[in-house]
C-alpha cells in the first residue's frame, strides 16, 4: 500500500487536479453560446413535426371514419338513420358522383342537401406550398387554435412584409381554416398538412475585428457604447447570420483580470420563447426604465458574488440586450451611451 501520509496525499491530489485543469484553457464562450442558440431553435423547430404528426393522424383518422361511413352507406344505406332509410332505400335518387381520389363525393337527394363535398381551391389553405392533402369530416373544420399562430404573423412572415423584423414563433403552425357548416348536412373539407412557419438553415457565425467591420456585416444599424467603465475593452465582436436578412450581433466587453464583463446583443428578429419559472425567482428584481426614449426592462439577478444586470428593449424591430456582471446603474449608463 501507499507510503503517503494524509497531508502529502491531499497536496498531491490538489496539485494533480490543478495541473490537469491547467490544460482546460478558456472556453470559446461566444461560439458556445451561438451553438446553444442554434440548437435551441432547431429543437424548437423539431417539436413541430411531432405536433404535425399528431395533427396528421387526426386527419387520417377522420378520413378513415369518412371512408367507413361511405362504405357503410354504400353497402347498407338504410342501416344508419331514418333519413338514410328514406333516402338511400329509394334508389332512384341515389347519385354517385365523382371521386377524385381524396374521398371527394357529392350526393344530392330530394330537396335536402347534404354535402360530402369537395373543398375548393379557395377553401384549401396554401395549396401551392403544401401539395399533400388529407380528408377531414366535420361540421366545422378548424385547426386547433392552440397549435396555430395568428394569421397576421403567418402572413407577415410568408410575405416578408417586414424586412427589418420578423417574428419567429416557437409553435409556428399554419393559420387556421374555418369552413361554415351547412346546417342540413355534413361537410367534408380538405385541409393541408401544417407547414412550419420558418425553416432553420445553418447559421453562420462571423467574427469581426472591429466595430466598423461588424457594422458592415450586419444588415441593420449596430449600436456601440460611447461610455465604458474603466478597464473595459472589447474582446469579441461577432455576427451570427440566421439568413441573409436577419441575425444578431454580440459584442463582448471584458475587464482584464476581473469577472466584470458586458454583452451587448442586437438582433433584428423577435423570438418568442415560453416564459420559464426560473424567471420568477425571488432574487430577481425587474422594473421598467427608459433607454433612448424606449421603454426597457431592467432585470437584476442578485448572486452571492455580486449582481448580474440586464436591460432589454425593442426599437424599430431590433431587440437590444445589454447584460453583464455589474451594477444596474453602471449598465444603464452604458445602455444610454449606445450610438449608431
Amino acid at each position, binding site marked *: 500500500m501507499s507510503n503517503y501520509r*494524509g497531508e502529502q496525499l491531499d497536496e498531491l491530489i490538489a496539485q494533480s487536479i490543478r495541473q490537469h485543469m491547467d490544460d482546460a484553457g478558456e472556453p470559446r464562450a461566444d461560439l458556445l453560446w451561438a451553438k446553444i442558440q442554434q440548437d435551441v431553435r432547431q429543437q424548437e423547430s423539431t417539436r413541430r413535426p411531432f405536433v404535425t404528426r399528431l395533427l396528421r393522424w387526426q386527419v387520417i383518422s377522420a378520413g378513415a371514419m369518412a371512408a367507413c361511413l361511405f362504405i357503410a352507406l354504400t353497402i347498407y344505406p338504410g342501416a344508419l338513420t331514418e333519413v338514410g332509410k328514406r333516402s338511400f332505400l329509394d334508389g332512384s335518387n341515389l347519385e354517385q358522383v365523382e371521386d377524385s381520389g381524396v374521398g371527394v363525393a357529392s350526393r344530392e337527394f330530394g330537396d335536402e342537401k347534404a354535402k360530402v363535398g369537395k373543398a375548393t381551391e379557395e377553401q384549401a389553405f396554401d395549396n401551392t406550398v403544401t401539395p399533400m392533402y388529407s380528408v377531414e369530416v366535420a361540421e366545422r373544420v378548424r385547426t386547433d387554435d392552440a397549435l396555430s399562430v395568428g394569421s397576421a404573423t403567418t402572413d407577415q412572415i410568408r410575405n416578408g412584409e417586414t424586412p427589418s423584423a420578423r417574428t419567429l414563433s416557437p409553435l409556428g403552425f399554419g393559420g387556421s381554416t374555418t369552413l361554415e357548416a351547412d346546417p342540413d348536412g355534413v361537410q367534408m373539407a380538405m385541409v393541408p398538412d401544417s407547414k412550419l412557419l420558418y425553416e432553420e438553415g445553418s447559421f453562420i457565425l462571423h467574427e469581426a475585428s472591429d466595430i466598423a467591420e461588424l457594422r458592415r456585416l450586419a444588415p441593420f444599424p449596430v449600436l456601440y457604447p460611447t461610455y465604458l467603465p474603466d478597464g473595459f475593452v472589447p474582446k469579441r465582436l461577432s455576427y451570427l447570420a440566421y439568413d441573409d436578412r436577419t441575425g444578431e450581433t454580440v459584442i463582448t466587453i471584458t475587464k482584464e483580470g476581473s469577472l466584470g464583463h458586458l454583452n451587448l446583443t442586437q438582433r433584428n428578429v423577435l423570438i418568442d420563447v415560453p416564459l420559464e419559472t426560473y424567471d420568477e425567482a425571488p432574487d430577481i428584481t425587474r422594473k421598467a426604465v427608459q433607454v433612448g426614449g424606449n421603454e426597457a426592462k431592467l432585470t437584476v*439577478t442578485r448572486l452571492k458574488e455580486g449582481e448580474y444586470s440586464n436591460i432589454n428593449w425593442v426599437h424599430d424591430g431590433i431587440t437590444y440586450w445589454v447584460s453583464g456582471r455589474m451594477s444596474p446603474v453602471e449598465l444603464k449608463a452604458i445602455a444610454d451611451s449606445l450610438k449608431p
Partner: protein
Amino acid sequence: MIDRRPEEKISSVSPINLEVLFNMHYRAVYNVAFYVSGDRNLAEDATQETFLKAYHKLNQLRDTDKVEAWLVRISMNAARDLLRRRKRASGVALDHDLPDRDGSGDPEQRLLSGEEKHAVAKFVGELAPEYHEVVYLKYYREMTTIQISEYLEIPEGTVKTRLRKARSIIAAKLGVSETIKRAAKGGRTGVKL
C-alpha cells in the same frame, strides 16, 4: 422583491434567462466537463449539451442558489456520457498510461514530480462519480466539507466518508502502481504482471 405586473410577463424576457444562466455559469460548467474528460472539445460539447438540457428543465428550478450545483451535475454526467460514447466509437481506451518512472525514493521527494501528479490525476479520473464529484469540489474548488454538503445537498458526514474513501482508493492505487512498476523493473516482489 419582484416588481412584477402581469403585462411584464413578456416573452422577450425569457431568452435572457438562458443567456444569463450561460454567462454566469459557463466557466464552471466547462471546467467540470474538462475535469471529467480532459479534452477541450469534449468539454465544450458537454457544456453545450448541459445548457440545452438546462433550457428544457428551467421550470424545475426553484432555488437559484442551487443552479450552479445543478448545472455542474448535468455537465459531469454529460461529459461522462460523451466520453463513454467516444470510447465506444473509437474502440480505444482514452486513459493515459501510467508514466514509467523509477519506483525508488521517498514519496515526499517525488511529491512535486509531474509523473506522480499525472498518475494521481488518472486515478482521480477513475473514481466512481460520487467520489469524483467531491474530490473536484474539495481539491479544485477548495470548498470545505460543509460547503460541499450544502452544494450537493447531502449530509456533511456523507461528504467526509466519500472524501475518505476517495483518498484511500487513490492511495491504494498509488501503492499498487509503485509495486507493479518495481516488479516490471525486475524486482522480486512476486507480483504477476
